[in-house]
């Protein structure tokens, strides 16, 4: 089974995202900030990552840059999932190595469409 790591400091959002990615056939793991996510990736690199931007300790963008520098860190498909909805944020994320970008609020249909876009489903 493919795995998806959901990184968000809101437990409610993680729960919603978990439901969606599980319905798409992924095993779901969770992390509450970028540092936690990086620790988990070092132990087990997921196939996909849904990534919030603003989080305590280490934000999503810092995490992404660190992840892509890891051995094997190019492997996960990273989809930003954030309320940062400015074009400038989007281009910044893409330059840092994001594969897709979801502007909150999102729903199952948008996540599924984005997963299809990057070839995950």
């Amino acid at each position, binding site marked *: 089974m493919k795995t998806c790591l959901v990184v968000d400091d809101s437990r409610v959002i993680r729960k919603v995202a978990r439901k969606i990615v599980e319905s798409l056939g992924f095993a779901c793991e969770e992390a509450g900030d970028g540092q936690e996510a990086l620790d988990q990736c070092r132990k087990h690199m997921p196939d996909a990552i849904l990534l919030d931007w603003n989080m305590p300790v280490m934000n999503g963008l810092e995490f992404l840059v660190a992840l892509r520098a890891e051995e094997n860190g190019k492997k996960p498909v990273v989809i930003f999932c954030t309320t940062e*909805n*400015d*074009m400038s944020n*989007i*281009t910044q994320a*893409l330059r840092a190595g*994001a594969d*897709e*970008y*979801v*502007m909150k609020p*999102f729903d199952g*249909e*948008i996540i599924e*469409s*984005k997963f*299809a*876009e990057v070839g995950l489903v």
Partner: protein
Amino acid sequence: MLTESKFRFLSEDVKKRSGLMLGPEKGYLVESRLSPLARTEGFASVEALVDQMMRGDAALSARAAEALATHETFFFRDRTPFDVFAETIAPVLKTVLHGRKAKIWCAACSSGQEPYSLAMLLEEMPGLDADIVATDLCNSVLEKARAGLYSQFEVQRGLAIQRLVKHFEQTGDTWRISPRLRQMVRFEVGNLLEDFGKYGKQDVIFCRNVLIYFDIEAKAKILDRLANQLQPHGYLILGAAETVVGLTEALKPVPGQRGLYARPEALEKIKAA
């Protein structure tokens, strides 16, 4: 709820105007789509609105037909047709057009996502220019299409983020399609039940997710007339739930290409090659 005879009048009137079939099971759909119209037109109920239609108010009937249509659409809907366009159709067009611009017609384009998806593909593709005409029965969706303004929700359905960055400008919460793409598409009112002569011969026709709402007779007639608008080498693309099989002999499915249809003589050529 409408009485049986009023419902029958409404469904016949609508079918005449747009082709839409309203079976007796569509009572709920009629209420939910005509109630807002009844309200804005100042009628106390859908029934009162239909009464006025029965008195011969043609303008009101036309607005009712528009209100009853389904406008659901999104960018790169169903993906396959757009892959087929880029991988199968475009290479053929490049060899037969000899530098001429391709003529593409999106019949029943709704709020413009379909023609704009094609415009994006064309812009990303070197060596093929096209004029796209996009038509729909309904004025309000065409206005939206011409403005090229889409909500955050709409630009996240079917659209890769790179394409959003490349082809849209952000204005607050909404996203406007680039002037370059807007220039590639001409939007016009057009009814599939009316004469196609003014459109001329097309290299490609997209007519997706509209014939499903029509009865067999209407489907067959429209498909025959669409075939007539195609260049000998032309292609027709239908929606995933639509086909020409059993409806017309003027078009045949292109083997191995889902949703793609061509004139029989063109298929003979493909086979021979």
